[in-house]
C-alpha cells in the first residue's frame, strides 16, 4: 500500500516538462475525457465510465472511461505515477483499503455497478482476482496457499475435491511439475518466479472471471518473466486479463489491447499492434518511442 502511495507521491514532473518543449504548447495540457481511440468493445466484462479517484485532495485518476473485453489481455502502460496501478485497483475495489481514497464514476462488471450497495466486495474479489507486483505468498505451505481461496469461499465439498482444485490450479499456472513432490514445503521457499506463479495459481483456484496483474514481472528475471508471459497467453483463453506494466516490450508481447495513461488521464486506447506502430496522440508516440518515461 505504502509503495503505491509513494509512487503516486513521487509523481515526476519531468515528462510534462519535456513534452512542453518537444511537442509544443498546444498539445501539452491534455483535455479531460478526450481519450484517443475506441474505448468501447463488444460484450465487455468491465465497462468503466468517467472514473475519478481522489487520495484526499489529490486527483489521481481523471474521468477515465474504458472497456475490458473478455478473453483478452489489456495492457496499461505509462510513466511512473500516471495512475495505471490506481485504476487497476479500482476494478476489484482494493482502493477501499486505503484510508482517504475515494472512487467516483461507474464501473460495471457484467452490466452491474461494483459500487452498488447490494454488491458485496468479497464476492467481487472472488470474481476479480489480483496478482501483485511483489510475489506475496502466504507464509504457509504451497498446498495451503492454493487451497486458501477455495476454502474460504467453500468451493470444495471435500478433501478430494480440494486436492483436485489445487492440482489443476498449479498445473494451469505451470508450477505442478516443479512442486508436486513438496506441496507441504513453505510457499516462501520457492524462487521469485515460482512464487509469482504460485500467486497466479492461488488466484485461479477460486475460478475468477478477470485477473488483474500489477506489474507481475517487475521483480523477476527474464527467464521467469518469459514463463509468466507464456502463462498469460494460455490463461487469456479462459479469463480476461488486465496487466499494468512498465515494459513496453512486455505490453507488445502479451496484450491485444493497450491503454496509455499519463498523469491520471487515459490518453489513448487501441489494438496493441496499432498503438505501437501508429500511435495517434503525440504523448503516446513520445512515450513508446522512448522520448520520456
Amino acid at each position, binding site marked *: *500500500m*505504502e509503495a503505491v502511495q509513494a509512487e503516486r507521491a513521487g509523481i515526476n514532473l519531468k515528462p510534462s516538462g519535456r513534452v512542453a518543449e518537444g511537442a509544443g504548447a498546444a498539445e501539452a495540457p491534455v483535455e479531460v475525457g478526450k481519450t484517443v481511440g475506441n474505448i468501447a468493445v463488444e460484450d465487455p466484462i468491465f465497462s468503466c465510465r468517467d472514473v475519478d479517484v481522489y487520495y484526499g485532495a489529490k486527483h489521481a485518476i481523471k474521468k477515465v472511461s474504458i472497456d475490458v473485453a473478455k478473453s483478452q489481455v489489456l495492457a496499461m502502460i505509462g510513466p511512473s505515477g500516471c495512475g495505471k496501478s490506481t485504476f487497476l485497483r479500482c476494478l*476489484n475495489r*482494493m482502493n477501499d*483499503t486505503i*484510508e482517504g481514497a475515494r472512487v467516483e464514476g461507474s464501473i460495471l462488471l457484467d452490466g452491474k455497478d461494483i459500487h452498488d450497495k447490494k454488491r458485496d466486495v*468479497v*464476492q*467481487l*474479489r*472472488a470474481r476479480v*482476482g*489480483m496478482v*501483485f507486483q*511483489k510475489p*506475496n*505468498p*502466504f*507464509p*504457509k505451505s504451497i498446498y495451503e496457499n492454493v487451497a*486458501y*481461496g477455495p476454502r*474460504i*469461499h467453500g468451493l470444495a465439498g471435500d478433501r478430494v475435491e480440494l486436492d483436485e482444485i489445487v492440482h489443476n490450479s498449479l498445473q494451469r499456472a505451470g508450477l505442478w511439475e516443479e512442486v508436486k513432490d513438496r506441496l507441504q514445503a*513453505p510457499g*516462501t521457499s520457492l524462487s521469485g518466479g515460482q512464487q509469482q506463479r504460485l*500467486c497466479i495459481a*492461488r*488466484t485461479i483456484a*477460486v475460478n475468477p472471471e478477470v485477473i488483474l496483474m500489477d506489474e507481475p514481472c517487475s521483480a523477476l528475471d527474464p527467464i521467469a518473466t518469459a514463463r509468466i508471459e507464456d502463462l498469460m497467453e494460455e490463461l487469456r483463453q479462459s479469463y480476461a486479463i488486465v496487466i499494468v506494466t512498465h515494459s513496453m516490450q512486455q505490453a507488445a508481447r502479451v496484450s491485444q489491447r493497450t491503454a496509455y495513461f499519463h498523469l491520471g488521464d487515459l490518453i489513448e486506447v487501441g489494438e496493441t499492434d496499432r498503438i505501437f506502430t501508429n500511435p495517434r496522440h503525440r504523448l503516446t508516440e513520445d512515450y513508446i518511442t522512448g522520448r520520456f518515461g
Partner: protein
Amino acid sequence: MSNTNKPRRTAQETQAIVTASLRRRYWAERRFRTYGLAAIVAALTFLVYLFFVIFSNGMGAFRQSELKLDIYYDPAVIDPAGTRNPDDLHAADYQALIRAALKKKFPDVEGRAGTRELTRLVSGSAAFELQREVVKDPNLIGTTRSEWLLASDAVDLLQKGHIERALPEAERPVSDQQLGWVDRLRSEGSLDLKFNKTFLSKGDSREPEAAGIWGAVVGSFFTLALTLLLSFPIGVAAAVYLEEFARRNRWTDLIEVNINNLAAVPSIVFGLLGLAVFIGFFGLPRSAPLVGAMVLTLLTLPTIIIASRAALKSVPPSIREAALGMGASKIQMVTHHVIPLALPGMLTGTIIGMARALGESAPLLMIGMVAFIVDIPKGVTDASTVLPVQVFLWSDSPERGFVEKTSGAIIVLLAFLVVMNTTAVILRKKFERRW
C-alpha cells in the same frame, strides 16, 4: 564549493587524508566497544552478587533441624474413653506425648521450669504433626514409634551455626542447659538437618520453623493464571480492534495516548482503584486472587496492548493485500493471516506483562492480600497471599529464623518466574516455526 579555485587534490593527497583519519575512527570504535564491555561486566557483577547473597542466605531455608524421639502413643492421653471418636482424637493433648518422650530421654530433668526448657527444644507445631498422624491412623494408639519431629527455631539456628555459643547465656536464645541437651542429642544422632518438606508444602506460620511458602505459591499461581486469562484476550482484542478496524480519528488518538499513559501509572494507584471499585463498589471478597488478578490485569493491559499493536504493525501489508485480493473478508484476513504472524510478538508483550505482574506487591497490599493467611487457598475467592507479598511479610518479621525464609522465598519466586518464562518462550518458539 567555496574553494573551487584551489587546485584539485591528487589521489595520493586524498589517500593521505583518509589514512590519517583511519586511526581516529578505529580508536573511536575500540573505545565504544570498551564502554559496552564495561557495562556488561558491571551488570553481570551486580547480578552475580545478588544471586550469591540470595542463595547463600536462602539455601538454609530448604533444610530444617529435626529431632528423633521415641513417642509412646499413650491411650490414656489420647483416648481415655477408648471410643476412637475422631473429635476426641483431635482434642487430645499431644504436647503431653512429646513432653513424656523428652522426659524419658532426659530423666534427670526435674521441676516445671526444667520441663519447660526441655519442651522448648521441639517446635510447637510438632504436636499438630502427631495429631494428624493419629487421626489418619488410629491404630498407632498404644504403640511406640520413633518420630522425627521439627525442632524449635532456636535449635535450628544453633544447628545451622547462626547462634554464637561464646555469648553470655542471657544474650542468646538458648540456655546453657539446652546447649547441653542439644549436644547430647547431636552426638546420639537424634538431631539432624533434613530436607525441609514443611517449607515447600505448608502455609505461613508465626513460628519460623513451621512456616511454609506453598500457600503463597498457590496464591501466586491462581492470581497469575487468572491475570493471563483476563489480560491476554482483552489486550489482544483491544490491539486488533485499534490496529485493524478502528478508523483514525480524534477518539482513537485519545485512546492511544491514554493507553500509553496507563503504562506509566504507578502500580499502587491500580491497587487503590481495585480497592474502591472491585471491593468497595462491587463487593468482591478481600484478599482474594480474583480481585488481585483483576487489579494486575489493569496493570498489564497497557503493556500487552502496546506490544500487540507493534506486532500487528510489523505484519507486512503485502500479506493483507494478498488475503483481501483473494476475497477474504477483513475478519478472515485478521484471524487467518495477521494474528498468526503477530502472535510471537504478542506473546513477548504478554511475557513482559506477566513477569511484571508476578513481581508486583504494592497494588496487592491495597486489596488485602497482605494478610497473615495460614491455609492453602483452594479457589480464586479464598483469602490468600502471593510470593512477593510473602517475601515482604517475612522480611518484616522480628524472628531471626525468618531471615533465611525470606531469601528462600525469593529463590522460590525466581524459580516460579523461570518456569513461567520458559513455558512462554517455548510456546512462542512453537508459533514462530510457522514461518
